[in-house]
């Protein structure tokens, strides 16, 4: 029934005077509002909020339907079903984690709902040929390559140890890391996957220390990142550099733990100083409104919502049109040039360069690549105070 009415109504809407004002467009937003990744999820929520404000300034009225996935894929899938068939949103932004984003991508393709993934790393998300799924952030192999390239640029490491959580995110980035490390001729000194929720890593770190690796590559969310570094300090692990694979290593909380975060290298999708259009203002606004520095998660969510909101409004909430517009469009905002391309087995993947930061004196400073670098890196790791 709706199929016949819709074009008639659309015609009427166009014919009516004052029909230039767009009706509110419904966008779904799945996020880790509660659960272990909630502190990061908060950044995404804030980013989306700021985007909605900006869209309103442009005359675009966006109604965001939020769903909490608690970090669990099956909950995310239920949320996606609700959004797609119950709320009938035009498009979906999110979810945050690799595991949930991957699960939702499958449903997005099945229900034919355009989905823009803001910050999930798992490679496969955009390697399955799903033409309804778009990813704004750089995938896992870029995380790994950026970090290892940076280390190779700063010094001459020969061996690398991996310690990562055994989830989609951890496994994906670590796998990419191991692959690239071997390509670059590094020996893999250790490969330790840990279960979330059992944070006594002392024995594992001791084992790693015994191998004397030049680099220690860690992939974790917030809580584990902090505890891993604390216990690294405890056991006296002293590689040439600690490499943190984004996520937990890229949060205000980690930054504030100066005792343990100083001189850790982390890879990120965005920094406030990166120099892209509007970044500095965004950071200032975020700081003023939320009292803390925005992370890359906030920036990604902000840009994703802006893009989806504009496209959805122009397409009148039509899912197919939105998909086509996303596939064909280009944007330039705080994430720099955004274009969803298909290349080397990826579908609808934005090509983003990931800068590497180092925590110096309690602040994260961009140190690599040269075109983004603001400060010189401290390498090798000078040791624990």
């Amino acid at each position, binding site marked *: 029934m709706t199929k016949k009415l819709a074009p008639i109504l659309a015609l009427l809407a166009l014919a009516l005077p004052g029909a230039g004002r767009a009706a509110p467009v419904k966008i779904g937003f799945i996020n880790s509002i*509660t659960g272990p990744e909630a502190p990061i999820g908060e950044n995404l929520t804030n980013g989306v909020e700021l985007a909605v404000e900006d869209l309103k300034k442009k005359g675009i009225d966006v109604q965001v339907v939020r769903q*909490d996935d*608690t970090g*669990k*894929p*099956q909950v995310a*899938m*239920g949320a996606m*079903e*609700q959004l797609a*068939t*119950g*709320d009938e949103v035009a498009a979906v932004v999110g979810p945050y984690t690799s*595991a949930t984003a*991957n*699960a939702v991508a*499958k449903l997005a393709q099945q229900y034919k709902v355009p989905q823009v993934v803001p910050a999930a790393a798992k490679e496969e998300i955009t390697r399955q040929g799903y033409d309804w799924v778009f990813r704004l952030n750089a995938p896992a192999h870029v995380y790994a390559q950026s970090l290892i390239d940076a280390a190779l640029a700063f010094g001459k490491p020969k061996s690398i140890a991996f310690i990562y*959580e*055994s*989830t*989609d995110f951890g*496994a994906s980035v670590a796998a990419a890391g191991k692959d690239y490390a071997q390509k670059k001729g590094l020996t893999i000194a250790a490969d330790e*996957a840990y*279960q*979330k929720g059992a944070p006594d890593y002392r024995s594992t770190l001791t084992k790693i220390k015994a191998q004397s690796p030049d680099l220690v590559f860690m992939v974790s969310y917030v809580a584990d990142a902090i505890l891993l570094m604390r216990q690294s300090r405890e056991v006296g692990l002293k590689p040439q550099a600690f490499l943190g694979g984004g996520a937990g290593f890229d949060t205000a909380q980690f930054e504030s733990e100066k005792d343990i975060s100083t001189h850790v290298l982390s890879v990120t999708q965005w920094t406030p100083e990166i120099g892209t259009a509007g970044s500095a203002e965004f950071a200032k606004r975020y700081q003023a409104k939320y009292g803390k520095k925005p992370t890359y998660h906030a920036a990604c969510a902000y840009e994703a919502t802006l893009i989806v909101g504009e496209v959805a409004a122009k397409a009148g909430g039509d899912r197919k049109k939105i998909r086509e517009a996303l596939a064909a469009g280009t944007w330039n905002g705080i994430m720099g040039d955004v274009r969803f391309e298909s290349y080397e087995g990826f579908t609808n993947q934005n090509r983003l360069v990931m800068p590497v930061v180092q925590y110096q004196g309690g602040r994260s400073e961009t140190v690599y690549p040269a075109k983004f670098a603001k400060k010189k890196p401290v390498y090798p790791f000078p040791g624990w105070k």
Partner: protein
Amino acid sequence: MPRRPSPSVAPRGSAALGLVAFLAVVAAFAVFPQFVRKPYVLHMGVVLFLAIVQGQAWNVIGGYAGQYSVGHAAYFGIGAYTTTMLLELNKIPPWWGIWAAIAAAVLVSIVIGSITFRLRGPYFVLASISVTEIIRLAALYFKGFTRGAEGFLLSEIPALKIGGAEIEFYTKRPFYFAALALAVITVGVNWLVEHSKLGYYFQAIREDQDAAHSLGINLAFYKNVALAISAAFTAWAGGFYAMFVKFIDPNTVFGLDVSVQFVLICIIGGIGTILGPVIGAMVLVPLSEVLRNPKGLVQLGLLSSDSRFVQFVEEHLSNAHMLVYGILVVIVILFAPDGVVGLIRSGVARLRRRASARERAQAATTT
């Protein structure tokens, strides 16, 4: 004196009535989807039937045989993983894969049974939990085999071709009917167990193991039979769950909370009875769904979309279903250890006593 669940003996004649009522209810459920627009309603139906199956399956070993296994997630998970891996890795459709899953679960149950059945009471409980934790941790660790914490995202289930007809497994409808059939079968199996010699042996073991042994009942054999039946249906439910939810990982199907849920469905409804798990499921499932997804009530048309109730639940009680389970279990154990069914029975018995006392009083005064 320790309180035991009351032996299940129904008065004669009510059996035929019970059967008619049962068939009527099943028919109602079968016809129901015709009147339903939103897929969410069918989704709820599937979840309800699945809970009934889980409760009924556990009832065989926990209710009738009195062995409280709090590790049944082992069989659920084996069912889920076997069916999933056969589908994903070997392209074997689930209606064949499920038989392999059931066989695997029964085999494992025999192994687990032979290890744990020599333990009594709380030690048996602890052992059953340990075994399942070992399985869960192994599933997490041996990533090459089970994909570890990443789990399996299921691909499309191929359509089932019977004769000329083709049944797709894309919408919720076929799942609804399959789940209904499974629930009916397990209720039927429970009825058979209760009214057979097997059932009497189980209950004898439950009431007093040593006395049963001295009467010549082979404890190990019958406990294993009970466990095998229970494991088979739990695995069936597990395989079904995997096909329905389309995502499994070790924590969702082998978790301790899953095992606890099976027990709760039975305890709250009424352990050791046929209707108990059904009632338990009917109490727990709607409660947990409302708390998990209050917007569902809006979808069902029961509440308007800006209802204050929905907002309150979303803000303050989301995902609080385990809290409600906990409260219910505490209340049931303290005040109604025979569950809802037990309450109904004692209520009926009390009414009968009052009625017959009144009759006697009247008879006495009319002479």
